């Protein structure tokens, strides 16, 4: 009995201690980490910025871009750190950091994740500073950095969906980029008969790509009277389900997961000769395809495949947001505007910049692979042709559920349309679990 009591007491002591440590954090933090960002040192404002850009060989490194800024702006010194993990892991870390008052001033946040990050109480309203930079960015991406009319940062890159295809192979088959859904099916069947595929069904990208394609025809999430109205089974969604289901039934599309090596293999062996892709996939295609079809590929706008007159939707893309604990939002935004308009440097990181202050030039090796085409111009056209799509808080859970369901359509144990019904139920569950209002 004595032992038991002592045990209880000991545990309670530990519990109290732990609560104090974990919950209350410390305001007097003098940590060498990001919290330095808050302190100004002799008039110098220190800003910290966390990103997950590739920073690979041959790119202009983020630190080098930042060094340029630091040289020109001795009064605002920026320190960039690269997070070596997934987007969801970074959000988790930032969430903890914000609670501990230890977060960087600026952090890369995907457009689809912004509402979630907002709901998690991690962002700072910087509408008053954002206004003046509005004209530097395309309006669509700019508006993706707001939640409920408040702005939280500036957009960095965009991912409009376009169509990549191998023109030489298309010519050989006597087909061209389809303009209608019927034409798409007919051409896909014709190609499949010759062992070629002009479409790919990517289960692991369903949450991003399929939602983008469906969203091109109209959004899924609307706010009415401060409550969510969710409809993921729109006409646009049905059109997407219909087309892909027909392609799958006719075995006229590849079904490799996008980030599996087998997708690369299908490019490499020349069997995949056309696919819907996000603009930022261009340099990846080049790496995966190697010599196969180099110089023969082209970028085209989506045809009128989903009954929306060829509108396109967003797939990925990120902005940079000012986090709640930043003590210098004005200076942070000043730097951010400068950073996000370093167009050629950002292009070197494989991004399609959201900034419009200068035309992004197609890098030489990209043009070489895409038959001399100015693909940046195509991406710009696509950017301007993008439907409005608002993401809901907690969309990552919806996307994950969509991916799992999409995989079932591959082996025939499910249908493509199931993706959208699962999206509907998961969306509503997620919103309710977050304690947000839903109108059903």
């Amino acid at each position: 009995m004595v032992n038991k009591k002592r045990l209880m007491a000991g545990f309670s002591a530990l519990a109290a201690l732990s609560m104090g440590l974990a919950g209350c954090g410390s305001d007097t933090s003098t940590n060498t980490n990001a919290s330095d960002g808050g302190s100004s040192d002799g008039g110098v404002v220190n800003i910290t910025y966390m990103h997950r850009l590739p920073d690979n060989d041959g790119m202009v490194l983020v630190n080098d871009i930042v060094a340029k800024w630091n040289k020109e702006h001795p009064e605002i010194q920026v320190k960039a750190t690269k997070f070596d993990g997934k987007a969801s892991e970074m959000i988790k870390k930032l969430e903890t950091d914000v609670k501990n008052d230890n977060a960087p001033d600026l952090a890369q946040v995907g457009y689809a994740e912004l509402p979630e990050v907002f709901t998690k109480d991690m962002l700072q309203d910087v509408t008053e500073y954002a206004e003046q930079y509005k004209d530097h960015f395309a309006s669509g991406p700019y508006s993706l950095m707001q939640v409920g009319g408040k702005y939280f940062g500036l957009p960095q890159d965009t991912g409009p969906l376009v169509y990549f295809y191998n023109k030489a192979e298309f010519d050989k088959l006597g087909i061209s980029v389809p303009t209608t859904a019927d034409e798409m099916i007919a051409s896909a069947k014709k190609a499949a008969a010759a062992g070629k595929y002009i479409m790919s069904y990517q289960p692991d990208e369903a949450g991003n790509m399929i939602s983008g394609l469906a969203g091109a025809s109209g959004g899924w999430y609307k706010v009415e009277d401060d409550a969510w109205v969710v409809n993921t089974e729109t006409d646009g969604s049905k059109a997407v389900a219909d087309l892909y289901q027909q392609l799958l039934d006719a075995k006229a599309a590849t079904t490799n997961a996008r980030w599996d090596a087998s997708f690369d293999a299908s490019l490499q062996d020349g069997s995949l000769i056309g696919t819907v892709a996000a603009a930022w996939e261009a340099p990846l295609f080049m790496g995966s395809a190697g010599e196969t079809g180099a110089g023969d590929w082209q970028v085209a706008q989506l045809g009128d495949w989903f009954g929306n007159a060829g509108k396109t939707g967003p797939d990925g893309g990120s902005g940079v947001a000012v986090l709640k604990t930043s003590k210098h939002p004005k200076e942070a935004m000043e730097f951010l505007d400068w950073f996000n308009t370093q167009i050629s440097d950002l292009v070197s990181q494989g991004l399609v910049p959201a900034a419009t202050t200068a035309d992004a030039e197609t890098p030489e090796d990209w043009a070489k692979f895409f038959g001399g085409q100015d693909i940046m111009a195509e991406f710009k056209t696509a950017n301007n042709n993008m439907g409005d799509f608002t993401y809901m808080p907690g969309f990552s859970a919806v996307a994950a559920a969509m991916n799992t369901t999409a995989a079932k359509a591959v082996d025939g144990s499910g249908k493509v349309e199931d993706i959208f019904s699962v999206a509907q139920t998961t969306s509503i569950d997620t919103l309710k679990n977050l304690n947000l209002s839903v109108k059903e």
Partner: protein
Amino acid sequence: MSATTHTTKAPGAGAAAKPKRSDAAKRENRTGWAFMAPFAILFALVFILPIVWAIYSSFFRQVAEGGGAYGGGKLVNKFVGLQNFQFVVTSSAFWSGIGRVLLYTLIQVPFMIIAALALAMLLDSFIVKRVTVFRLGYFLPYAIPGVVASIIWVFLYNGQISPIVKGLAAIGINVDFFAKNIVIGSMANITTWTFTGYNMLIFLAALQAIPHDLYEAARIDGANGFQIAMRIKLPNVRAAALLAMLLSIVGTIQLFNEPEIMSVSDPSISKSFTPMMMALYTSRGTLTPSGDGPASAVAIVMALIAGILAALYALAERKVNQE
């Protein structure tokens, strides 16, 4: 924070030692704790505090304050009682995950232990001379980090790339390592590949510690090699084997790396494929309800199940030992 009410009593309760203890016992108590202290302090910091935190947080959920469409950008910790646990035990995804790891454990652990035992016995059977080459070769995978091992194997499973799949297809055997009923076996293979050598080394060490006059005596009694293996060697490595089994069971319940990496190739492997994946992705908001509260509840229920299984196993082992 009702927990704090007990804290003031804690030191008093601890100091109220039995006065009649002998000096020797007191000294022993002191010495014992002195040796124990460094580990105990670190352990409290790294395990106890976080676990207490996890238990505490499992009674809360993070929800947006004020409701509305976006919750006004405020997040509050809401006490939800046992609601997180209710969610876990009624979640079909959770129990499917438990079912999968149990199935996995049933296939993988006995297979690996038996394979490791067999290899150790063969290496110890005086048949082979260059034991070192085999020993190190079998053991090498243990040095490869789990994530990397999984990436390598995913390539070797991939129908369009793998020389294994292509080679088998060339001789008329078509295998799909990602097929619905095979995918668990494919994962089990990765674990087996990584850890068999490690277990084998432990068994080999146990075998080599057996005094050699035992063998000679058996040989004089007319026992053949097989009988020696069964009657002398096996009983001598039993303790090591049972322990390895227990540790492997605990390890496989926490299965994560293999399904995580394989899900890149096979998106039908969901984010809640194993309880460990479910816990991690719940914590990161990829599953709903999300956050640390529900994630902690998943982890706690999972640890309880692992504990029960380990206890059952230990009981069964003791019972078998007594007979």
